[in-house]
């Protein structure tokens, strides 16, 4: 175990940022523009791999950016958890970029340059969040992410997009400024530090009521995690182009929210503090409610993307719930679930987008029999939904397994029941789609019995991610090890 100062984490953040600038200034030439996207993504991946090796060996990277407040610098610290998240974001960025090209070009979307530039910027911010070494840095990149995704959310620039964008920013900024900021400051004033540490930073005795308040402020403050009642922005932001929904809901935004909450729970409060106080229960209760309610809502949605969105809300709460259990296994599970869910959910979104590109259909009721027209897409959809539900052969089972283990460790049976119910609900809202797609009656089918998939650039990504999902079942160590290192559980 050693800590080394390295420019690497900063360089990853910078590369994406510079990439975004390049994209912005090469608006004339579309191919060159997208080449930049890929080049930066590739560089990022390479750098990430380089770091991953060291991190897996148990080292941490730090990089001190600037001391913005006395004793409170902006700095990067890369540990297993951050690495895990960066990996997810970095690898999925490539896929999403590919998909974006396949999605945007056929639809002749306007302002593509802005889109790609903001996309790169969002990734840059995501990486920043992943590598941040203290709450302040995390908050900084969190805000940058909120702002840089705003143009993405409102990409269509019509009335609907405006409403969605309004909701998006209102919720994210309100919560982050109104809750997270004071919580952060109060924490700092009480502890004198904001640097994450696995033992938590509340070392001296703190008024328990204050702790509860802080916990609530933090959980709701990072509203990207979609905890009810601050989840409203998420379905609202469904008006965006599908690649953006993919980015929002699978890769960057919501995952950042959850990542932040997890970081706060593990790095600021610490598992020990959580488990030894009622805090753990509070987190669990909030998360459980969200899980159940959002799954129930998802059942009632007809718009495919909205259903996926509510599913996301539920899954995010899963992750928080896992951390809320406050046992090592639970935390490992929830960390891993970030990755697993990312792959699963992005597949689903890609599929939804592919369906839209190929047929222009948005509603589930219109998709009866679609499996006959787009078999590949729908198989990918099936795999994705299996992963989200947590069935074997997909990565989702692994993380859920750990979470269940964690719940058993903590001895709270009701959490197990929650997991069970929610999985059932997940299955209830996903399987009918798949079933109807393939096994509907002939006369109900709304599609000709002719294979007509989306263009290759839109088709390939879901396939890739679906395969990734399966691979993650076979080699879960890819992400599991990072999580274990982060929590300190032996491999």
């Amino acid at each position: 175990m050693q800590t080394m100062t390295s420019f690497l984490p900063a360089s990853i953040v910078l590369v994406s940022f510079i990439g975004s600038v390049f994209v912005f200034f090469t608006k004339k030439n579309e191919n060159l523009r997208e080449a930049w996207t890929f080049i930066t993504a590739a560089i990022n991946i390479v750098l990430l791999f380089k770091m991953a090796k060291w991190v897996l060996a148990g080292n941490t990277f730090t990089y001190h950016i600037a001391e913005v407040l006395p004793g409170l610098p902006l700095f990067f610290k890369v540990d297993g958890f951050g690495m895990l998240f960066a990996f997810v974001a970095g690898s999925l960025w490539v896929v999403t970029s590919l998909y974006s090209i396949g999605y945007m070009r056929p639809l002749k979307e306007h302002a593509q340059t802005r889109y790609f530039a903001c996309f790169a910027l969002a990734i840059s911010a995501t990486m920043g969040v992943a590598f941040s070494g203290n709450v302040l840095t995390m908050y900084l990149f969190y805000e940058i992410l909120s702002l840089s995704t705003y143009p993405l959310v409102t990409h269509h620039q019509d009335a609907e997009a405006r409403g969605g964008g309004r909701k998006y920013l209102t919720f994210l900024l309100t919560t982050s400024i109104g809750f997270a900021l004071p919580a952060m400051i109060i924490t700092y004033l009480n502890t004198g530090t904001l640097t994450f540490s696995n033992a938590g930073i509340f070392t001296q005795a703190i008024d328990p009521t204050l702790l509860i308040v802080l916990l609530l402020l933090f959980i709701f403050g990072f509203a990207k995690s979609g905890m009810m009642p601050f989840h409203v922005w998420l379905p609202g932001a469904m008006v965006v182009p599908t690649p953006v929904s993919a980015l929002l809901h699978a890769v960057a935004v919501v995952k950042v929210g959850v990542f932040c909450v997890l970081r706060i729970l593990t790095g600021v409060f610490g598992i020990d503090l959580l488990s030894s106080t009622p805090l753990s229960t509070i987190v669990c209760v909030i998360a459980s409610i969200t899980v159940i309610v959002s799954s129930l809502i998802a059942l009632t949605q007809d718009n495919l993307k909205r259903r996926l969105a509510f599913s996301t809300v539920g899954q995010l709460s899963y992750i928080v719930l896992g951390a809320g259990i406050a046992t090592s296994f639970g935390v490992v599970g929830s960390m891993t679930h970030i990755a697993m869910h990312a792959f699963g959910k992005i597949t689903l979104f890609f599929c939804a987008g592919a369906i839209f590109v190929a047929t222009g259909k948005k509603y589930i009721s219109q998709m009866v029999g679609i499996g006959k027209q787009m078999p590949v897409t729908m198989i990918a959809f099936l795999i994705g939904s299996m992963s989200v539900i947590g069935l074997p052969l997909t990565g989702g089972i692994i993380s859920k397994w750990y979470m269940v283990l964690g719940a058993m460790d903590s001895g709270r049976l009701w959490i197990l029941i929650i997991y069970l119910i929610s999985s059932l609900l997940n299955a209830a809202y996903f399987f009918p789609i798949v079933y109807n797609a393939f096994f509907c009656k002939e006369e109900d089918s709304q599609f000709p019995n002719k294979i007509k998939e989306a263009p290759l650039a839109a088709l390939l990504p879901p396939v890739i991610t679906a395969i990734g999902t399966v691979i993650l079942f076979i080699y879960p160590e890819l992400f599991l090890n990072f999580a274990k290192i982060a929590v300190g559980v032996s491999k």
Partner: protein
Amino acid sequence: MIEQAPALIVVIPLISALFITIIGLYQPRVSWLLTIITFALSSIFAFICLKQVVTVGPISYVFGNWPAPFGIEYAIDHLNALIVLMICVVAFLVAIYSKHDIIKELGDKIPHFYSLFTLLVTGLLGITLTGDAFNLYVLLEISALTSYALLALSGGRAYIATFNYLIMGTIGACFYLLGVGYLLINTGSLNMADISVILSSNTYSYTVLVAFLFIMIGMWTKMALFPLHSWLPNAYTYAPTSTSCLLAPLMTKVSVYVMLRMMTSVFNYDYIFNVLQWQHIIVALAVIAILAGSVLALRQDNLKRMLTYLIVAEIGYMVGGAWLGNANGFTGASYHIIADGFMTLCLFLAIGCIIYKVGDASLSSMKGIFTKMPITMVGFLIGAFSMIGIPPTCGFFSKWYLISGAYEASAWAFLVALLISSLVNAVLFFRIIEVGYFQALPSEEPNHHHPKITRDEAPLTMLIPLLTTAGLLIGIGLYTADIVTYLIHPFIKNFL
């Protein structure tokens, strides 16, 4: 010349103002250049002073070589060295910026404008540097008179607005003068440090209280703290853009500084917070100011006017922070003077650019502004982010300290007000951004073929200051720790 730097900071603009007037008779266009050179020089000397203060400690410069209480003294400590630098830099940037704007708005009054401009800054610099209570009054009046003239130059509704400002400003200055009179009658001295020594050795009588009260009310009037704010929005809205760019960041902030200065170097912590115990009332006032400013800003359609109400809210920040009575609050207030100065400057410069190109600053005229003036809007956005308090812009860090102070002092209302105001700012600015971003399109076209809005940026002399300011906002934010540890904390240490 280095040891004369404190005097030079003020004397250079003063003399150059005179030269501008004279040369302006023959070569009106040269005055712009002269102004820029002046403030470049002033900035250099201000920087020298700052460096010296940091390395050696507070500087005392006596005019006419008379020892301190008898002659007039410039007492440069950590905070005012910083603020002086800020003033110089802001003046420098606005001077560059004003070139085209003035030619467009004022025509043949260019040399007068620059002369008044330079003198205004002279006054502000003097106010900040001086260690003499009465000298401060004179300089206050210089800056006030110049600002009246500058504000009214654009004509139209500016006249009556400025007239109201004149009345309120005079009341403020007179109250200050009255307060100084009460101090004089108690101590027989005018030098701030001397007054402080004499005051602390006596028991505090009722007259000292009145002196303090009047000085404070005077300053609150000048800085437009909430119930006394009525003059500000109109005065700044109808003024020539360059004037509001100069005044909005500086005037009120300098008044806030005077308040801090009076609290720290004339009175002392014990008196203000333990004997008087007004802090709750005044923090409550600040809360009202913040909320009222924010709410009123929400109701405005004109951007300039909206910003003026935001200034009212920001004043609440600083007053509240200063009166929290703890190190963090005071740091927040002091730091916010700098931060808010640049923030307001940035926004006003951006809006100035827009007015220059579009013609007015109503919300409806902002349609498609992002396509039309992208660079301007980048500056505007950074300013707006700072106002909202998004890291790493400096607005975030001042808010950080203020919230810390509010928490430590258990001033919950103030804390909540700060947060609400941030959110209101967010709403305000995103309303603008939304308009600028969305309404470009004729929307209903199916293929999203938008008519090309041609790019039409403001001239370079306007853009460069804007972007510099925007850069400074981030730069200051990143160097907050240095500013706080090397400049603000040493200043506060003596007070608390």
